[in-house]
């Protein structure tokens, strides 16, 4: 009986166990499917949140218009430097940078005591230079007198030498003529005289002929000697004359090469000019005033109370009636689209537009490479204030292109290659999804807003990624932003 009960009991328990296990398994299965359903929604939501949303555009025909916009300032057309004599002590500087001043308004006060002192110093210096000049002049006159004397002496010597030389020559010449005459006389004596004399002394004929030839020889030698003496006398005279002539020339050139006097004169003149300026300044009680109405645009950094006036300008005054100019800086790229004479619009800081102005000058900025300074002249009656900021707008000529995209859609890779991200459909487990595909493009022209690409590079209906709420790269799965769908 007990066994039967046990068996029955065990069977019931087993049945119960199986039954509860089945129920649990079914319940667990139900829970599992519910959980899977929840996770399906969660994973979809997470996926939707992580996929970048992109806005797109399609390439369009468009004109690329280069509007250059540059900020700059209003400056004066004419800036006058305020100058004074350098080296003066500055008493006070009432002028300030940017201060509006009227004509005659005090800009700088020179220290009067210092000015007086400087004038005194200069006067003394001028006096000293005057004395130097008179000394130099006296020395120069003494030198001139000596020179004159030396020249006269040399001329006298020359004349005396010429006279004495001529006399010697004349004398030698006369002696030579006499000797020549004696010789000629000897030759002209008739032969009979000679024969008779030879007959009379027949025995001594041999001795007689030998006497004649000795005489002739003697006379000839005498003549030759006189001739030589005459030639020597000429040579000696010429030599003496040359020497004396040289002495005259030496005496004439003998003069001290000196410009002391002229230098001192120049120095004195300079001092006098400076002195005149000082005195003029003193007459104005050391006051340097504005020559016209305007604004002080710059003050030299050395111009401070107690400082010393510099060699260069004290300050710059922008004259009010000279008119204004707008000055700005543009880049090399922008410079391609701005030319001299281009019409511009100037927007002032109080949102007033000035039209009809033209570019007056474009110069390369020396301080900064690859930038240019553009100046636009403004009429004097324009209602602008000096140093106000303003914005220049220049619109260049527009050129039409077949394939244009927004500049934002254009991307650059690490190698500087331009590319765009196109949207391409791809089949995935989740269905058709959009994928960003990179396409290298060639940019023909661009402005701040649009870029023109080589025509046909992108089909007209093709969607290009314009912006994205997350950083995206080629190959990323994306979805369209809601307002783009």
């Amino acid at each position, binding site marked *: 009986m007990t066994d039967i009960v046990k068996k029955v009991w065990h069977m019931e328990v087993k049945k119960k166990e*199986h039954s509860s*296990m*089945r129920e*649990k*398994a*079914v319940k*667990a*299965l139900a829970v*599992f*499917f519910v959980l*899977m359903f929840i*996770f*399906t929604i*969660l*994973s*979809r939501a*997470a*996926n939707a949140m*992580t996929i970048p949303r992109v806005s797109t555009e399609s390439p369009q025909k468009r004109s690329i218009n280069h509007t250059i916009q540059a900020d700059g300032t209003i400056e004066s057309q004419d800036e006058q430097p305020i100058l004074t004599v350098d080296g003066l002590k500055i008493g006070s500087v009432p002028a300030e940078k940017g201060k509006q001043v009227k004509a005659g308004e005090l800009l700088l006060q020179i220290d009067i005591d210092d000015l007086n002192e400087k004038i005194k110093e200069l006067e003394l210096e001028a006096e000293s230079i005057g004395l130097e000049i008179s000394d130099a002049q006296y020395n120069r006159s003494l030198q001139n007198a000596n020179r004159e004397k030396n020249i006269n002496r040399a001329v006298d010597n020359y004349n005396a030498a010429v006279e004495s030389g001529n006399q010697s020559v004349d004398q030698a010449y006369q002696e030579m003529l006499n000797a020549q005459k004696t010789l000629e006389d000897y030759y002209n004596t008739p032969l009979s005289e000679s024969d008779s004399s030879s007959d009379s002394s027949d025995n001594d004929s041999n001795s007689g002929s030998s006497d004649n030839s000795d005489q002739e020889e003697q006379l000839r030698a005498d003549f030759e000697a006189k001739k030589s003496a005459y030639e020597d006398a000429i040579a000696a005279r010429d030599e003496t004359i040359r020497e004396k002539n040289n002495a005259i020339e030496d005496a004439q050139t003998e003069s001290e090469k000196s410009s002391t006097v002229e230098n001192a004169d120049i120095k004195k003149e300079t001092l006098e000019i400076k002195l005149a300026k000082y005195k003029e300044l003193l007459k104005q009680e050391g006051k340097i005033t504005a020559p016209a109405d305007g604004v002080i645009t710059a003050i030299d950094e050395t111009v401070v109370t107690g400082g010393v006036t510099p060699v260069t300008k004290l300050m710059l005054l922008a004259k009010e009636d000279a008119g204004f100019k707008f000055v700005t800086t543009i880049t090399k790229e922008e410079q391609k689209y701005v030319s001299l004479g281009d019409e511009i619009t100037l927007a002032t800081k109080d949102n007033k537009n000035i039209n009809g102005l033209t570019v007056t000058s474009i110069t390369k900025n020396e301080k900064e490479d690859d930038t240019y300074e553009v100046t636009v002249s403004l009429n004097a009656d324009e209602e602008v204030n000096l140093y106000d900021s303003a914005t220049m707008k220049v619109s260049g000529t527009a050129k039409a292109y077949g394939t244009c995209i927004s500049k934002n859609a254009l991307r650059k890779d690490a190698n500087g290659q331009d590319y765009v991200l196109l949207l391409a459909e791809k*089949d*995935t*487990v*989740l*269905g058709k999804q959009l994928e960003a595909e990179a396409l290298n493009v060639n940019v023909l022209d661009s402005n701040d807003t649009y870029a023109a690409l080589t025509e046909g590079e992108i089909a007209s209906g093709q969607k290009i990624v314009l912006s994205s709420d997350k950083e995206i790269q080629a190959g990323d799965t994306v979805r369209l932003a809601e307002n783009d769908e």
Partner: protein
Amino acid sequence: MKRKIVLTVLVFMAIIMCYPIIFLSIGSLMGKQELIEHLKPMLVEKSESFITMGLVPVFPTLKNYVQILMDSPEFFVMFWNSVKITGSILVIQLLVGVPAAWAFAKYNFAGRKLLFTLYIILMMMPFQVTMLSNYLVLDYLKLVNTQLAVILPAGFSTFPVFIMYRFFSDIPKEIIEAAKIDGATDLQVFRYIALPGASAGIISALVLGFLEYWNLIEQPMTFLTDSRLWPLSLYLPEITVETAGNAFASSIIGLIPAMLVFLAGEDYLEKGIMASAIKE
């Protein structure tokens, strides 16, 4: 003593049988680096060593599960595809197979034996044999690359008919006759006597069917080219370094419904297997 030896052998064999599940469970709790270390021989080409798997993860993590459940909508697409395919197949089997089995069991009609023999022959043919003819028919019906290409052939499978036939046959003829004498129609007999009488067989056929169709691989691979239509068994067809952890976790999650269905229908399953083993 003998009993202990038998028990030891059985436990050892059970461990060997369960090892793939243990392997999957441990792997699904491992981090990426740890998995790479263990699976290197599989991931690296021409490796001569073998895959290893520790008994406990060094750095256990649920990251793989979180990633599958929270960050893989593709997994759920395939999961619900599996549910859809399996569910549809089972519904068709219920609607078509149950009456067919009842007819075979209790109605005498011309060609019954021949037809039933044909059923058994078809049941015994593996998928590879009927694949081409299946494909040609499905292609003709323009059903290739639709889930119906998997659902319809499986829905009209002969195996559940065979199992249910066994259970319907066991219902005593007398009960049916008694019911008919009491004025019951054929439909009433089917509804009130056949179905409750063979419920164990029907459930076992469904459980067996679920286990088979939940893990379908060849049919979807053959007939479905669009990955959107694939069932869970084709999730992550290629395991890479990046996807290994996910593959482990998804396998474990995919295992859960099969296990629960098995537990729910364990009793019926035994009966069903028993029934399919009895020859006519």
